[in-house]
């Protein structure tokens, strides 16, 4: 049972919950929440490996997590903007309403 495993199990649990939610939810925003959870799960595993991982070079894991937080912020902004645009055209946010390509 190496030192990083509990954190990896936590990341796995988080990932699974996020994915289950993203798949099950009809509301676009909550799907986005699920995706956020999955992203954070990945982040957690990076930091776990950076802390307990064998590799001597100190920063790569940390740096990657840092950049992924920034990118996740941008992704959330664009995703929500898409949802607003979708709402304006379809008057609802459920994912079923978004299947037609017209308009």
């Amino acid at each position, binding site marked *: 049972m*190496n030192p990083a*495993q*509990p954190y990896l*199990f*936590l990341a*796995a*649990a988080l*990932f*699974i*919950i*996020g*994915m*289950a*939610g993203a*798949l*099950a*939810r*009809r*509301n676009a*925003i*909550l799907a986005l*929440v*699920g995706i956020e*959870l999955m992203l*954070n799960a990945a*982040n*957690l595993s990076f*930091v776990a490996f*950076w*802390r*307990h991982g*064998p590799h*001597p070079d*100190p*920063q790569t894991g*940390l*740096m990657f*997590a840092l*950049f992924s*937080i*920034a*990118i*996740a*912020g*941008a992704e*959330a*902004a*664009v995703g*929500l*903007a*898409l*949802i*607003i*645009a979708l*709402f*304006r055209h379809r008057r*609802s*946010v*459920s994912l079923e309403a978004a299947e037609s390509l017209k*308009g």
Partner: protein
Amino acid sequence: MTPWFLLFGGLVVVGALGAMALRNPVHCGLSLVVTFVGLAGTYLDLGADFLGLAQILVYVGAVAILLVFVMLLTRTGRGESPEVRPGGWWWGGLVAALVAVGLVGALASVSGWKPRSEPMTFPTVRDLGVALMTDFVLPLQLVGVVLTAAMIGAAILALPERRGGRVGRTPKGEEPEQ
């Protein structure tokens, strides 16, 4: 397996379950914030304090508010559309179970974990700064570009067409027919 990990890990799991299972979307958003705080605590526990605080600043400070604002703007939470796809949980649960089996199996069977050669040196903020400016200067600039592009894109998408630019309008500039 420090006691802090148990506390923050618990927060994360409870928050994530809440974010996915609660009925009222705004409650989901708030329990998402609990997850973020739990994660930040885990990062601090792992010694990456700059990352933990950045996580709070970015996620709790901005993304969560954005999420909740959009929920209000799009009038969710009034319970018109059923929140869960019919039979959704069954589908989601099945796929999640498969992935879970794969992940846990991989994690449990890992072996041959070489302990660290030299003791762990926690980088100070200055070291992170130096690393950012020397080894990671290219990713830094790219993230800058991506963030600007995302900001402009989000603004154009979100602005209502009436005051917006040419986006989404017929060539003569009238309202697109619904």
